[in-house]
């Protein structure tokens, strides 16, 4: 039996030196016994002292990086088994280099389990350390804490980053951590009496803890799973728990039994006044402001349900040229203005090339709410149907009546349907002036998003040229 004595409980370097030497000498895991100085072992006296562990020749063997990530964490576990488990893994890696990938192997699973418990202990330390003010003058704080595993040293840098400008000490039975605004230092384990016994703010913290608790939904098991009892004695708020649990049912019953109280008369009067002043609806709008307000509350079809807002037209109230698109897209729906997304940018470029100032035109859509379907987490555009186009003509007609443009340009088939009231194919009717019943002239052309979709370069250039030509035609008709 080969006995190895390590200098202290978390002596990773000592373990590493010894393990390296023993594996090089072929000491099987079954014949190794790991202890920490000061611990008595069963084999005391019955065994020859271990030979001094000289450093192994450099480059004797290599281990996967995952092992070097795992081992320093496992060693912080309080189980006595940890050194032997790690040595067994190290031993087995000789013949099974991929061992650590087999998470379902019993040894690997055990090591992962230890590492997870250590990780949890570190996380709980970050959560449950409670500082008490030790010196108002220095703004210095001291905490007493009992970690589930030996994580104090490993967790100290977290506190130093978080409280870089505050002096603190965390006292634990294993190691004590101190931060002096510049450096972390460590001293041997301490006693709870070394920390302050109270803090003036704890009364406020307990008040908060008791008030944020909802007695109508008691779930004691869920609480204890995350805040195990072993931590309670150092948590100022935990003393309240039994009382809060005991009173919960009674408090809930009282709430449920209580008859609703009468609201004060002042409140009732104010409500009546508000409902009387509510806006009055129903008549056709006579101004663009009324259109904008109306579109946003429109329930003429169901598209409002999944959309953010109704998107009214934009532009001067006396524009000579009125553009009608299809419907707002994802970006327009969020922003509340027409033609601001990718198609809108394409539209702006074409207008610039055709010499049409957008600010002198009125730009709107045939349908004012964004019709889409969800694909995964994306909203994908869906063409509005004839019913929706018809329902929304109420608003388009109002806009045309108020703006009274000389020329109405329909961008795409849906817009043409809305403007002319019947299918008006773009390919057949584009490039010419068409008479509209309200004495305006109509032009039909492509929707700018069509230009985004044309696949090959030659066709794209051709469509672009036609689109720009149509915009120029419309502008000249309006002049």
């Amino acid at each position, binding site marked *: 039996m080969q006995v190895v004595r390590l200098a202290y409980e978390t002596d990773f370097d000592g373990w590493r030196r010894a393990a390296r030497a023993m594996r090089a000498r072929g000491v099987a895991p079954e014949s190794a016994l790991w202890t920490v100085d000061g611990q008595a072992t069963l084999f005391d006296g019955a065994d020859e002292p271990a030979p001094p562990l000289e450093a192994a020749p450099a480059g004797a063997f290599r281990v996967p990086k995952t092992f070097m990530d795992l081992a320093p964490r496992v060693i912080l576990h309080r189980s006595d088994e940890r050194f032997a488990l790690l040595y067994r893994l190290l031993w087995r890696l000789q013949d099974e280099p*991929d061992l650590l*990938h*087999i*998470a*379902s192997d*019993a040894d690997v699973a055990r090591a992962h389990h230890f590492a997870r418990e250590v990780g949890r202990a570190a996380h709980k330390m970050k*959560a*449950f*350390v*409670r500082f*008490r*003010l030790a010196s108002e003058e220095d703004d210095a704080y001291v*905490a007493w804490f009992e970690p589930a595993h030996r994580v104090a040293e490993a967790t100290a840098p*977290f506190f130093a*980053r978080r*409280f*870089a*400008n*505050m002096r603190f000490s965390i006292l634990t039975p294993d190691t004590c951590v101190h931060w002096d605004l510049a450096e972390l230092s460590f001293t041997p384990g301490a006693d709870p009496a070394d920390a302050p016994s109270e803090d003036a*703010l704890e009364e*406020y*913290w307990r*008040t*908060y*803890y*008791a*008030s*944020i*608790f*909802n007695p*109508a*939904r008691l*779930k*004691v098991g*869920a*609480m204890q799973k*995350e805040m195990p009892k072993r931590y309670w004695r150092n948590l100022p*708020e935990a003393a309240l*728990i039994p009382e*809060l*649990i005991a009173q919960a049912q009674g408090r*809930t019953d009282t*709430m*449920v039994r209580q008859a*609703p*109280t009468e*609201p004060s008369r002042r*409140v009732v009067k*104010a*409500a009546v006044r508000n409902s009387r002043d509510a806006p009055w609806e129903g008549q056709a709008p006579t101004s663009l402001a009324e259109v904008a307000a109306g579109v946003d509350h429109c329930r003429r079809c169901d598209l409002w349900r*999944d*959309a*953010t807002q109704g998107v009214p037209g934009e532009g001067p109230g006396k524009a000579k040229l009125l553009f009608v698109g299809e419907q707002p897209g*994802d970006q327009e*729906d*969020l*922003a*509340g203005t027409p033609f601001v997304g990718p198609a809108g940018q394409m539209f702006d470029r074409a207008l610039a090339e055709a010499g049409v100032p957008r600010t002198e035109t009125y730009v709107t859509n045939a349908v004012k709410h964004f019709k889409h379907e*969800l694909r995964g*987490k994306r909203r994908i555009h869906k063409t509005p149907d004839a019913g929706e186009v018809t329902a929304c003509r109420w608003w388009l007609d109002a806009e045309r009546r108020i703006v009274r443009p000389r020329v109405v340009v329909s961008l795409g088939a849906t817009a043409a349907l809305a403007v002319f009231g019947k299918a008006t194919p773009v390919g057949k009717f584009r490039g010419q002036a068409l008479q509209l019943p309200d004495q305006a002239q109509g032009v039909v052309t492509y929707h700018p998003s069509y230009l985004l979709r044309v696949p090959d370069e030659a066709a794209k250039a051709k469509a672009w040229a036609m689109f720009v030509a149509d915009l120029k035609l419309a502008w000249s008709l309006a002049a």
Partner: protein
Amino acid sequence: MAVLDLKRKLAILSDAAKYDASCASSGSVKRDSRGGKGVGSTDGGMGICHAYAPDGRCISLLKILLTNFCVYDCAYCVNRVSSNTPRARFTVDEVVDLTLGFYKRNYIEGLFLSSGIIRSADYTMEEIVRVARTLREVHDFRGYIHLKLIPEASPALVNEAGLYADRVSINIELPKDESLVSLAPEKDVAGIKKAMGAVRLSEDAAKDKGRKTRPPKFAPAGQSTQMIVGADAATDGAILKRSESLYGAYRLRRVYYSAFSPIPDATSRLPLQRPPLVREHRLYQADWLMRFYGFQRAEIIGEAEDLDLAIDPKLAWALRNRGDFPVDVNTADRERLLRVPGLGVRAVDRILDVRRFKRLELDDVKRLSRGIEKLKPFLICADWSPGALTDRADLRQKVEPRQLDLF
């Protein structure tokens, strides 16, 4: 009016805030107090729960209202104008001092500040922003801040809130627009949606690397919202459909579901029966399936349906789609494995790793999962095939968690 001491104010204004389920301090950027003059850090990934109340909820942030005076009259809310609950109001400095005092003692990760609406939306929003600004600029506080946005507040104030906050939220409150109109008459769904849309545009702009004049930052932990479950007649299907559309339209990080719970001084406009807490739990499970397991809402539940309270939605889906099972744990792709009830994201990733080196047997799967019995009917391993078990008529009884009898 009597002057309230700070402890009494804290009791009133935290009691008033507890119906907001969110307490997360996760998902922000990584930063700490080194090189600054104050305290605080955030870890980027998951937040820290500093305590748990006996209701099983995590306490991560100091979650309080600036004031519970409110001009709105939302039936489900304890702070509605017509309620006779005790009222209080913090000063900006009081909130700042409490936050820093609690933070330095390691009680909290930061502040979650909300407020009743007093005077006007802009006035209220300005007060909320003032607290955050003082914490960040005067005290160089680098902990987590979650601010509630007032939907009607001006865009400039919302943008300033986003500058100081890690996360912002606006509660949609109820799954159906019609219920909001009847239960919360002053709240305006259109206004809420518009505000969420504006937040998403600001987030997108802050992330857009191509822009020359990129705004400095905007709520790096994104936005979240909350829906109250059981205060109106909406089905689970309708609730999840709303979540689905909120995730899609506004890129919300989280939708919180809060089972309507009895409040002191309730109004007669509310149902007497409160929903079982397990309903809320099932909704969260379904929500996770949509966000992390590649399920579409329509696969989980139809719009007019409710979730099965006895079994989790993934198991329910598997029982309805037995034709897709058993799945061979040694050959199936990730998407298929994620659909096996009882296998979580982590177990699946481990299986995929192990599989590169050996064929998995039942014992292997057992060590990688929690409970092998529930998995058996749905899996094929090197040494296991469920045979006719998958198609047995009484499969549900076999895999359903046992109801314990009161002894």
